[in-house]
């Protein structure tokens, strides 16, 4: 009886630890990503202010990015092509389409709106992610009030920074 109890406790604690590790890896990766995007935006602003148009800069940037990431990780892609069912690639292709819609329409909106207007609207995209995740992938991503409150605080903060 005692062994069963110990096993159960071990299993529960290792599962909690794994969940916490996953979340920590995820949040750390998100912070590194934000650092990449945030510093990239400084270079991007310099380019579109001094050298070329925003859509041209984005197109070349995506092309260079594709070449770089392909050179680094083409083996993963080959493995996935061999092992994944064809239906798995549908959301992957749509990921590229939606990301490029995001970037292109953001730049186009900046032509018609001041940055203080467009940045808070576009900065609200985590809310769209939360709503879409809740509607379509509830099975994969559980959404809580804490996440929602955190997202609202982040969006309010971004809005203030855009105004300030």
């Amino acid at each position, binding site marked *: 009886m005692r062994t069963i109890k110990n096993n159960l406790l071990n299993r529960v604690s290792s599962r909690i630890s794994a969940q916490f590790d996953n979340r920590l890896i995820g949040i750390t990766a998100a912070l590194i990503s934000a650092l990449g995007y945030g510093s990239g935006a400084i270079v991007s602003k310099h380019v579109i202010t001094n050298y070329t148009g925003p859509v041209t800069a984005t197109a070349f940037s995506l092309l*260079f990015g594709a070449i770089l990431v392909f050179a680094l990780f083409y083996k993963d892609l080959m493995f996935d092509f061999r092992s994944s069912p064809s239906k798995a690639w549908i959301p992957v292709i749509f990921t590229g389409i939606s990301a490029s819609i995001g970037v292109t329409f953001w730049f186009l909106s900046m032509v018609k709106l001041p940055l203080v207007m467009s940045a808070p609207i576009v900065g609200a995209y985590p809310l769209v992610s939360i709503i879409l995740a809740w509607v379509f992938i509830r099975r994969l991503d559980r959404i809580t009030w804490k996440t929602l409150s955190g997202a609202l*605080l982040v969006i309010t903060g*971004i809005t203030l920074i855009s105004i300030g």
Partner: protein
Amino acid sequence: MSYLDGVSLAIISTIGFGATAVLAQSGMQYVKPTSITIISLVVGSILVFIVAFIVELDQVNSISIVALLFILLNAVLSYPIGRLFNFISVKYAGASRASSVIGIAPLITTGLAVWLTGEKLTIIILTGSLLILLGIFLILTDMSSVKTDNKLDANN
């Protein structure tokens, strides 16, 4: 009319960015984050080049070497770092949490602008920064689970 057009364009952009993380998480049931990054960049560059040829043909044709070098630096920061880690974070933290944390990128841009160009901090920017940190703290301490036990985990 132009103002409303601008708002509509910004809303479409918001939906595009918002859907990206959810689609990526859906794709990651079978495909690695690195492969999703490659495909999303290839698809994205084709689409954005089409738009660039339509709206900025002159600029595409006359781009300088210096501009290309700066764009290369931007690409290194935004894609092998920004987008790849974005998708890794979606895999481990879930689309909703990852998007919320990555949403702080403008804070980093502002911080770097203050540090590198000597721009002044205002009370509003400081308040915004504190709210962002509080938001991240809430997301980080959220104990709910994300399902990552998919085909990839079984393979690795």
